């Protein structure tokens, strides 16, 4: 067994009667970028705090390169952490913030060199004497990164590091973060509630819900082959149509319309949810057999594409959203117009209807 940078084995954390993290098993290969993603309250931040040693687990173990570090002091785990608020010390200069975690025994000259090196790395060499309040949000985030990296950790933990920033700045810093991580080759675990961020940054995405891992995989696998309806809907826009399994590779929607899908392994008459992403729905051509038609009830322009919502069948029928390229002739369809659409069978995924809680 090659030692992973980090390995979680059956990790659980109980707060009173609530189980915040429930039997987490996760393997983080050395040098990889892993995103823990999920809705708020799913336990992802608690999981990160357990890894950092800021909380102690109720059950389970944490291994780093094969060594059990479950009970180690946070500072002895070889990790650096960037907090959501950055937790920069406002009364200290940028330089003093970065050197805060350097060993007290380190000679001053060496400390200064290390601080300069890190500020250089994050592109803030000229800011050592400034105070955090004088910096922009993006600059503060980079100082927090430099401070976390200063002691030379093997693992970097990021707790929603981009969420405090303006959207346009977020995209820019996302790219910088990815480039820096790749350059340093440092194993990184990031917590985020933003699935787009996870898709853009991660080598591996771990989707959590209710303290449990729902699925772990590459961004492509999570997006293209989600394990269940929750993962599918969390990771990107999704049409979810209640249906029952019919015959001959078809499912029947609530309004009686039939769509083709892979029904292997499913009993006839079983209740399922038929899903398809809006970008996978096509405008039907003349050659498409089994096209559905519906009336446009909403239209949102989004630059390169237009998202149409169409109602299949009569009043109260299921609503389907689809993305149409802005240059497509039907992209200009107005409210009330009828549009014919095709749902490619290989893009339709069926999930067992979840019992209501």
């Amino acid at each position, binding site marked *: 067994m090659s030692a992973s940078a980090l390995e979680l084995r059956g990790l659980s954390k109980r707060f009173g009667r609530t189980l915040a993290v429930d039997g987490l098993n996760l393997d983080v290969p050395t040098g990889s970028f892993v995103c823990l993603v999920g809705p708020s309250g799913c336990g992802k931040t608690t999981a990160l705090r357990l890894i950092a040693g800021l909380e102690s687990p109720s059950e389970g173990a944490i291994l780093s390169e094969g060594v059990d570090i479950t009970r180690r002091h946070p500072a002895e785990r070889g990790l650096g*952490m960037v907090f959501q608020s*950055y*937790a920069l*010390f*406002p*009364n200290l200069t940028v330089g003093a913030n970065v050197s805060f975690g350097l060993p007290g025994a380190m000679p001053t000259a060496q400390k200064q060199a290390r601080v300069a090196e890190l500020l250089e790395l994050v592109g803030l060499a000229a800011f050592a004497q400034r105070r955090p309040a004088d910096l922009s949000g993006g600059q503060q985030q980079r100082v927090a990164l430099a401070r976390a990296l200063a*002691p030379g950790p093997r693992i970097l933990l990021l707790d929603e590091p981009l969420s405090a920033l303006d959207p346009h700045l977020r995209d820019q810093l996302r790219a910088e973060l990815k480039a820096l991580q790749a350059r340093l080759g440092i194993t990184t675990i990031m917590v985020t509630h933003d699935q787009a961020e996870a898709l853009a940054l991660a080598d591996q995405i771990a989707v959590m819900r209710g303290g449990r891992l729902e699925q772990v995989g590459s961004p492509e696998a999570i997006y293209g082959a989600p394990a269940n309806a929750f993962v599918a809907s969390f990771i990107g826009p999704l049409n979810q149509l209640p249906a029952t399994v019919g015959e001959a590779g078809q499912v029947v929607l609530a309004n009686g319309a039939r769509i083709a899908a892979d029904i292997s392994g499913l009993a006839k008459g079983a209740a399922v949810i038929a899903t398809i992403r809006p970008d996978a729905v096509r405008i039907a051509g003349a050659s498409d057999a089994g096209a559905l038609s519906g009336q446009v009830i909403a239209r949102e322009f989004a630059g390169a594409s237009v998202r149409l919502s169409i109602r299949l069948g009569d009043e109260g029928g299921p609503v389907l959203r689809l993305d149409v390229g802005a240059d497509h002739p039907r992209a200009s369809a107005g409210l009330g117009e009828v549009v014919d659409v095709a749902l490619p069978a290989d893009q339709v995924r069926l999930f067992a209807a979840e019992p209501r809680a």
Partner: protein
Amino acid sequence: MTLPKGPSAGLLLLIFAVALALFFGAPLGELAWRSLSAADGGLTLAHYAEYLTSPGLQRSLVNTAVLGAWVVALVTPAAFLIAYGLERTRLPLKGMLASLAAAPLLVPSLLPALALVYLFGRQGLLKPMLGGWTIYGAPGLVIADSIAALPHAVVILRTALSGADARLYEQAKLLGASGWKRFWTITLPGCRHGLVAAALVVFALTIADVGAPKVVGGGFDVLALDIYKQVIGQQNFEMGAVVAIMLLLPTAAAILFERHAASRQAASVSAQAKAYHPEPDRGRDLVVGIGCVLIALAIAAVMATAQLAAVVRQWPYDLSLTGIHYDFDRYDGGGWSAITNSVMLALVTAVVGTVLAFVGAYLAERSQAGRGLKRVYSVLALGPAAVPGLALGLGFALFFNDPANPLHLIYGTVGILIAANVVHFFTVAHLTSVSMLKSLDPAFEPAARVLGRGGLTLFGRVIAPLSAPALVEIALYLFVNAMTTVSVVVFLYPPEFKLAAVAVLNMDDAGDSAPAAAMGMLILYVNIAARIVGGLALRRLARRSTPVETPDTVLAGVAP
């Protein structure tokens, strides 16, 4: 060094909690015990029965309640007017108004009473204006205690009024509500909890005050004076304890309700609230301004009278200037050493109290100590505000005077004065620390832990420097209150260690009211000097570091 892990922070907080139990809980327990203990060592209600059947008591009880009610009825609207003038109008000279309204905080509660006697007493300058009335008794007490309590109510009501949400007023105006209607439907309901809190604090302060009853009480006996008479006059500690408990119960009830009201007031301020800026309104400013000026003039007149009486030969017959009343060493119970002693005591109280309250609050708010222990400490720290100074002081005297008590060695020393002062004023210091610490990013400690720096490093390099403005505020609060308090130290001060505020009481008692006024005003000047020094320190702190918001000093607690 590594950061204090769970156990050491927990151990430290445990020591703090035990110390509070020992220096707060135990004296109170002793007080209750002594009020119930029979001569043969058993439990008895005989002392209560004796007191309840004594003819004087019913009068004292009713008098105390009547006094409290009158002062509440006078002070609450007056304080509201001043708070409104400061927060909701465009009056000029707001700084001066605020200073005058706060001035009574800086003097012992006896001083306004003393000045009233100079103005309206037997030889009062304005006595003819009273017609057949006399200032001694209820009227003088109500006025003197109103002046003493006013600043506390102003602080509370300013906080309540400053939290206004401008959006509500804008919305009301768009809907066509008149200024008068906006006042009744937004302003008053918005600060109703503040009004309740102010009334309760005023009531608790008034019934616990011993200074004014001593000076202008005449025959109008109140509970606080009964305690003083039983203990100092008759050396009857059991009976003193009984009355102290009788006083403690309504005070504690009032303060507990007040905390509840204050937290409701705080909760009613929305985080998204838009700051309210009063717009020009000459009519409003004129009406409110006249009221404020009258109140401010009354306070100024009282202070000026006390000062004037201190520098003339024989008020009001011989108004030639003299410094003779400042020769304190000539008077029994006085002496210049009382001033230096008080300054020293106030300084030590300020330093010790600030450090203990802040470190305790830090451990209870941000350390890794156990949750249960944190809660116990937080509850304990709220206790002292609910206990009148006389009751606490008597509890201290009874508890530490017992030779069997290993802590007996502090009895009769300056140490017991420091301890009593720190405990008496602990709650406000604690709450101010807590609100400061709550304003700091909770991720500081985790960040330092991951970076491998100890809790002490973080505390010394980050937490304490960031909290410096609040620390200055707390130290100032403790200094000023330690300078002016009589009640908590009057049973405790060693004979050779006289205190200025007590000297005011004793000199007046001995008939030397001019030197008493002189010393009372000296206390005022010392406190003004302390406020100036503190203000300069705050300004320097503000310039030195990035602006960190200083939390408003939490409500002034019971401090007579």
